[in-house]
């Protein structure tokens, strides 16, 4: 049973790990912290996986656990990260089919989001990921109306940072 659960978890998580990477990139500013947060998210996902009943998509469930970890649980630690040593290619986003303008825009976007507070970060992230207001308000625990107001304010803040 445990073995099955492990295998299922690894399959689910491996396929969706990009969500966690994006969150790590939003909430941290260097590779080391990125890996540290990623590790904490992995631990929390695995710890809570037995409670994942599959009545929602794994990715939906993962958004909540990963964001909650970044916002409420994570604190910088000095532990050793359990990954192989990777050279510090940090945040160099490289891809052939990605044009320069978009690459610059993306970099500017990440830089701007880094200046927002934790909650605004979550709001903007969920907006960028096209999540409906219902899901946003349920994830953060605020009413839909509040989510809308807060979202508009967060977007304004972001615009001001991007185009001062």
């Amino acid at each position, binding site marked *: 049973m445990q073995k099955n659960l492990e295998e299922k978890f690894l399959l689910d998580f491996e396929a969706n790990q990009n969500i966690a*990477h994006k969150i790590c990139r939003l909430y941290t500013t260097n590779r080391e912290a990125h890996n540290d947060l990623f590790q904490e998210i992995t631990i929390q996902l695995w710890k809570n996986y037995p409670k994942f009943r599959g009545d929602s998509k794994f990715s939906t469930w993962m958004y909540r656990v990963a*964001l909650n970890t970044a916002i409420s*649980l994570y604190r910088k630690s000095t532990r050793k990260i359990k990954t192989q040593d990777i050279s510090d290619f940090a945040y160099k986003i490289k891809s052939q089919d990605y044009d320069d*303008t978009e690459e610059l825009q993306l970099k500017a976007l990440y830089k701007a989001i880094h200046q927002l507070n934790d*909650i605004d970060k979550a709001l903007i992230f969920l907006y960028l990921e096209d999540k409906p207001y219902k899901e946003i308000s349920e994830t953060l625990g605020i009413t839909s109306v509040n989510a809308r107001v807060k979202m508009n304010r967060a977007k304004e803040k972001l615009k001001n940072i991007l185009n001062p």
Partner: protein
Amino acid sequence: MDVLDNYKKAWKNQPEESNKLSSVEIYKMAQSRSSSIVKWIFIVGVLEFILWTVVNITIPDRFYKIYEDLNLMEYLNIFMGLHYVIILVFLFLFYRNYKRVSLLENTKKLIQKILKIRKTVKYYVFYNLATVSLGCIILNMFMFSDNNKLMKVMNPDNLALDIQQVITITIISQIIGLLIILVLLWLFYKLVYGILLRKLNKNYKELVKLTYN
């Protein structure tokens, strides 16, 4: 078209993380130990329970002599029994609140529940401070109600001392002792919980702010 729409397009087209982990690496990571804020609050909480229990246990017998002299031992024993029952209740509440923290909640509820663990510990410390203070007051009331007893307790060797002087010294030394303890505790709380809870308090305020705007 909104300015952000362009950026959103760039976001959507962003390449996948190039540093993807294999399932072996994920497996290794999942087995490692968490270093979350909740865990630290739990550890600090347990340490506080241990600290106060140790303080309770290691009080030297000499300290109780004053109760014997004042014929208060019986009350003290009843009180200590009650005291340990209350500590157990606190421990139970502390553990229950810790267990209730679930990442599957929404963010606001989650932060509320984490702050609740900390609150249990806070009340436990308040309780301890209150019992110490109350104990002091009761003891003082007994002592000062009878000058002969006071002299016997404070001056067992029958040195030639002025009763007024004894009273002043007793009160001043108690106040100084209490102040030192309070300042140390305050520093400890500012430091430890300040570091641990700063982020949570900030995010929680951010979440509730709108409700009252």
